[in-house]
């Protein structure tokens, strides 16, 4: 009799799964596609209050949560996650429920046997299996797996990391131990190079062309898109559309050596005019202020210029481009706020702020330190 109950239960589950699949396989209307970007002030239902403000938070729980998307790929993933979480929680409840019931019944049976010596002398009824039940719990998972495979493939196709939407702004991203290089194409065809703080326009698709100068890194800003690896000798693409202005945080997600933890990412989404202004400022040559000529001389005399580029002064490639260093909010790949004191300490002994980083201490004396710090602080 109990067998019948179980069979009925599984028949129900099968029916429910088929319905679920049909619903999912229907033409999609819900999910945002690559082109129809959700407007900026559409407030999506979010579990955390933090998402309802018009500017993404830069601190606090949810700041890098995958459930707080602000970009179509991240939102599609979030929607898929709700579905998969739902299915998994349902499976969890059913299976753990059976386990708990089996335990309760089994312990009761054991207690009954402990009270009754006649019962205790016999083993419980031996059941060796049941073909219908076993078929049922093979077929039901197969159906669930089929549904999951279909929705997974559909979302892979929808997001299609290799095919950014038409008209996307393309930015080159190069991973280094342990900082990020960003390369923009200016209108006149020249290349604008900056580091660690990515600026993107709000509401326009951004395509990242990912590469690495040394080991494998991974670009991960959870509220914008899923991560994608930066692999030397192998170009990857990814794209996103920042829907709200503000600062999005992230960090390198593939172990890349000693300072993997401090390879942080900051993505500033600016309204288009502000973005254009920023880009034009970045395209300009470095400011030459005669008041800090001594600092510039220090920079050029010592090994600084071997690694760091400053337009008009040096063209080093191994470290971040410093042409507009003072326009950034942080140093040390997003890990240290850019203040004069921090910058001076960084130049004096980078290892004291970011242990094992690749920049050596040049043992400058304090006059030289002050001069070069002042010089760099003028590079707006």
């Amino acid at each position, binding site marked *: 009799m109990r067998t019948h109950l179980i069979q009925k239960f599984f028949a129900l589950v099968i029916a429910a799964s088929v319905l679920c699949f049909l619903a999912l396989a229907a033409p999609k209307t819900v999910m945002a596609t690559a082109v129809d970007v959700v407007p900026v002030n559409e407030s999506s239902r979010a579990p955390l209050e933090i998402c309802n403000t018009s500017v993404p938070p830069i601190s606090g729980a949810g700041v890098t949560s995958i459930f707080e998307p602000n970009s179509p790929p991240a939102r599609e993933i979030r929607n898929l996650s709700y579905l998969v979480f739902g299915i998994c929680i349902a499976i969890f409840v059913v299976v753990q429920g059976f386990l708990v019931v089996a335990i309760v019944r089994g312990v009761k049976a054991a207690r009954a046997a402990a009270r009754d010596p006649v019962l205790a002398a016999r083993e419980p009824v031996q059941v060796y299996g049941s073909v219908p039940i076993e078929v049922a719990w093979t077929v039901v998972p197969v159906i669930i797996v089929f549904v999951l495979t279909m929705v997974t493939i559909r979302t892979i196709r929808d997001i299609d990391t290799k095919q950014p939407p038409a008209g996307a702004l393309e930015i080159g991203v190069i991973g280094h131990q342990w900082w990020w290089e960003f390369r923009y194409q200016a209108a006149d065809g020249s290349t604008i190079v900056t580091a660690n703080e990515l600026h993107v326009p709000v509401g326009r698709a951004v395509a990242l062309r990912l590469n690495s100068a*040394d080991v494998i890194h991974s670009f991960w800003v959870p509220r914008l898109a899923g991560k994608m690896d930066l692999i030397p*000798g192998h170009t990857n693409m990814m794209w996103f559309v920042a829907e709200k202005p503000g600062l999005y945080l992230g960090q390198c997600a593939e172990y890349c050596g*000693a300072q993997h933890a401090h390879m942080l990412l900051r993505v500033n989404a600016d309204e288009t005019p502000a973005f254009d202004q920023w880009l034009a400022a970045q395209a300009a040559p470095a400011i030459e202020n005669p008041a800090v000529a001594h600092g510039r001389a220090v920079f050029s005399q010592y090994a600084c210029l071997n690694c760091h580029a400053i337009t008009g002064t040096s063209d080093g490639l191994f470290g971040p481009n410093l042409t507009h260093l003072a326009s950034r909010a942080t140093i040390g790949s997003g890990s240290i706020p850019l203040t004069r004191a921090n910058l001076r300490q960084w130049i004096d002994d980078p290892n004291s702020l970011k242990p094992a980083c690749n920049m050596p201490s040049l043992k400058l004396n304090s006059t030289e330190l002050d001069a070069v710090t002042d010089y760099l602080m003028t590079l707006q």
Partner: protein
Amino acid sequence: MNTSIAANEGAHAGGEGPLSFWESAMRWTLSVDHKKLGIMYICAGMVFFLIGGLEAALMRLQLARANAGIIDPETFNQLFTMHGTTMVFLVGMPVLLGFGNFLIPLMVGARDMAFPRLNAFGFWLFIFGGLLLYFSYIGSEGLYGAPGAPDVGWFAYAPLTSRTFSRGNSTDYWILGIMVSGFGSMTTAINFIATVLCMRCPGMKLMRMPMIAWMMLVVAALVLVAVPVLTAAQVMLLLDRSLGAHFFDPQTQGSAVLWQHLFWFFGHPEVYILVLPAFGFVSEILPVFSRKAIFGYSLMVAATVGIGFIALGVWAHHMFVVGMGPVLDSFFAASTFLISVPTGIKIFNWLGTMWGGRLRFATPMLFVTGFVAMFIIGGLTGIMLATVPMDWQLSDSYFVVGHFHYVLFGGTVFGIFAAIFYWFPKATGRMLNEHLGKWCFWLLFIGFTMTFMPMHISGILGMPRRIYTYEADRGFEIWNLISSIGVPVQMAGVLCFLWNVVKSLRNGAIAGDDPWDAWTLEWSTSSPPPEWNFDRIPTCTSARPLWDKKHPEDPDAHYE
């Protein structure tokens, strides 16, 4: 059977008095007896388990607070590399192979493994491989005196492992230590296959074998297919590092992605190598403590073999963020989902076994039930990670760390503890203390949940794995703190276990031949078994030969 173990050994060896420590040590060292080798495998594995656990505890200490400065980044990177490598290659593999060694001949009614000396060879390769890896702490020198132990992560992605980025020779220690112990695993696998296929006692057809024998057969096949690929990849890496080859060097048209394919072609079957034997423990222990035959024996066998085959075709689900393209991503998502079907069948069959049984929650049963409950969670988070777009977010995050600890700790380690509590009486002749056993289980269970459940949340909140510290403004702190607080609870559980072993070896209750009223052949011989296992080779009439003996009125043979 009521004197000390050493005396037992003496009695079996020739009936003389107790042996001196030195004689006893010589006997163990020179032994080719599968039981001694099995016990040595398990003991050595447990020593490495303590070392690997301490490494993890240090990491959790550092991660308890944001921006903590207790451990410097290079040391931290060595800790997680050594923790992962140790737990996979020096704990999981040897302990499970040790159980295979100890149990297979006893369970299939043989007097030893097919190749006893090869067996001892495999064990000593494992020991020396492990020691070689740990010798890196003192033997390896790097530039600036920095790298002691390997620090490239347990899957050692190229090109971080190249001479350019991994200076010194710590990575060479990693390669050689794992390679040596890998040869040991391969010889053991050959031995398992030969023993299971050729050494079964009369009447034990393949479809009457204990589930463990089936699981070990599939595991051995997987080891034989997967480990040589790792060894080959390591040889290539060694050539890159030492002789200037360019297999994985992108500067000279080598491929960094190639290493990932080769490594995970080994690495994913490896996960099943680590979990299938634990499935075997559950499939043996659960029926005995439910007082019922395993539900759906043949489907269980089919599921095991199915897992074995599918396990060879899922490796690239570790590589969804490499940019393989939609076709490969879809294929590996589908194959990964598919493997959840046979895995699900196993869980349902265990539930079917418990259903209507008379459950007795002795310590082995507690651990087995904990295994089933935790493995369900690990399996379901696995489904989430197989959903490629979710993996784009969650890959390499703490969610993954939580997921695989549910599989390998909640799964494999709980299975190992269940097996130790269950077969300790057979191996030593004495019972482990039940009271301490229950403390051990509950402390481990609570500590485990505290440590690994919050990791799912910190992963969802965007915390990548393998970072030695994290920012204070991201909402990670509270979850990391809870994770870290779970560690001392787990340590207390492990201490309970160690104390239990010491205490029970001295004055545990005498076990007798068959303390659990079980049904497989190992319980028909004495505890501990004589060196020759069985005075007379047993015969087998069904999948539960001792059931048939105990219930001649209603033997299993009638239902085959």
